[in-house]
């Protein structure tokens, strides 16, 4: 999801009404075609509800009785808890493993095997170990969120910039100074990319976990709505998840841009002004 694909924002970042209008026109045509083929019975209306039906079903979901809120809350709690636990575990373990050359060497094959294993396939196993409920759900999301930060942090530490470390040594830096002033910031872009990937898989992981092991959450809501063939509401629920996914992604992108500010021009400009102010006031 790059900036240039956001409607109304050109490559240069300028806002253009003409562009917006074009996007709107295309969207309108798509919706109109969809409405037409379902209304005339070319597509089965039961399976593919008309856009107008979907819009109408938003009210019972969000307004009254507003069943979506509870499920949304449950899913988001799972996503965030699993994301935090998985990411922190991943980064801390990678830092520990990365420090010792021999640990790294002996663990390497297992890391490769685990990386090749689809994490979501372990869901039923986790369910068998932890039983039905929130614990299993949390464990599955944690599992899904663990690997990207783990692998990226490890890579970041291993691909340490040798000349930089040698230079720090020649200036008499301690091990701790080398770690905190050079290695960690140097690995930061990779670590942040890992965290962003973790967040991207957290929502999907939570939904699958709910499919197999839950009484509530958006995954359960989707299942229940499709089970009673309330397709308009199911589509509206899916749309909610799209919006949630989009917000989470953009949020992570913003955080990443702030943390590794030196990788984008805007970030550097802002940091530059801040630092100049600081040094001038010293």
């Amino acid at each position, binding site marked *: 999801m790059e900036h240039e694909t956001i409607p109304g924002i050109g490559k240069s970042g300028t806002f253009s009404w003409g562009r917006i209008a074009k996007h709107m026109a295309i969207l309108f045509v798509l919706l109109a075609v969809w409405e037409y083929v379902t209304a005339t019975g070319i597509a089965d209306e039961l399976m593919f509800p008309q856009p107008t039906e979907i819009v109408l079903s938003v009210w019972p979901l969000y307004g009254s009785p507003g069943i979506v809120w509870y499920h949304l809350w449950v899913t988001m709690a799972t996503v965030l808890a699993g994301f935090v636990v998985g990411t922190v575990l991943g980064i801390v373990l990678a830092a520990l493993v990365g420090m010792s050359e021999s640990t790294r060497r002996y663990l390497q094959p297992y890391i490769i095997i685990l990386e090749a294993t689809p994490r979501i396939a372990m869901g039923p196993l986790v369910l068998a170990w932890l039983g039905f409920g929130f614990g299993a759900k949390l464990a599955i999301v944690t599992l899904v969120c663990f690997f990207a930060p783990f692998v990226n942090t490890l890579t970041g530490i291993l691909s340490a910039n040798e000349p930089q470390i040698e230079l720090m040594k020649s200036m008499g830096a301690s091990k701790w100074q080398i770690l905190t002033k050079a290695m960690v910031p140097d690995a930061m872009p990779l670590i942040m990319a890992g965290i962003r990937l973790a967040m991207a898989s957290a929502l999907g992981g939570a939904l699958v976990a709910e499919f197999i092991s839950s009484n509530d959450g958006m995954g359960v809501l989707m299942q229940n709505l499709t089970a009673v063939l309330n397709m308009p509401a199911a589509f509206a629920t899916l749309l909610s998840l799209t919006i949630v996914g989009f917000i989470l992604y953009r949020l992570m992108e913003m955080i990443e841009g702030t943390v590794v500010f030196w990788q984008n021009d805007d970030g550097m400009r802002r940091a530059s002004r801040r630092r100049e102010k600081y*040094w001038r006031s010293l």
Partner: protein
Amino acid sequence: MTLGAVKIEPGVKKAQIGGKLEQSQNDQGKMNPSSPRGQTVIEGQGVSKLFGETVVALDGATFNVRKQQFISLVGPSGCGKSTLLRMISGLIPVSSGTLELHGELVQRPRPDVGMMFQKPTLLAWRTILENVLLPTELSRKVTAEDRDHALELLELVGLADFAFSFPSQLSGGMQQRAALARLLQTGADVLLLDEPFGALDEFTRERLNVELLRIVEKFERTTLFVTHNIQEAIFLADQVFVMTPRPGRIAAVIDVPFERPRDPELMQSVPFNDLVGQVRKIFGNAAH
């Protein structure tokens, strides 16, 4: 411009045959009246470096460097010039022989020795000023005086307007200027430069070389400069250590008689090119 006699180290032949270069070289150092300035700062006696059991990176280097001398170490890859520099810096230990700095054995990196590499290795997340202040920051809290000193150094290397820019916003040549300012900020009086401008284009390199000479003279530093470019080595140095590979050794020490300050036009002169020829010949002999 004084065009003094070019002295080729008489021990060259011996070095190729038996590696008994040490004595004659030392003698030359002591006897040579044209070698300028001061007391011995760095002294190596039979300094060798082995990597593993069999790889001899440097074999019995005996040399001395006096205060405020500018020494160029020139030779092809594998001649041990970078290895020698790293041993002097204390980054890697010597395998045998003794290496002394101000009369003390070199055992670890010391604050009075500073290093600069082919890559600027600036920290991307720090402004240029903060990069220059890094050596200070490693030992104590940075003060307003440190800031002013660093800003002066940035002015000196022509980066006054870029103190609050980030490294990626600077060209390669400017990044190396920043690295030079950082090196001076360490306050080290021995500067070890490992092909510092090797990655830059010809024009930038020549300009930076001239500026480097101006700066080390102004600050009265002792300088060891590693390069594989013979012209560059001679242009900069008071003395050139000519190094040959397999095993790496100092094959000759050549005095460079040209007066300072030096102008790049010197490189067009006949005596200069005679000297280049002499160095080339040493490499040619070593290859057989």
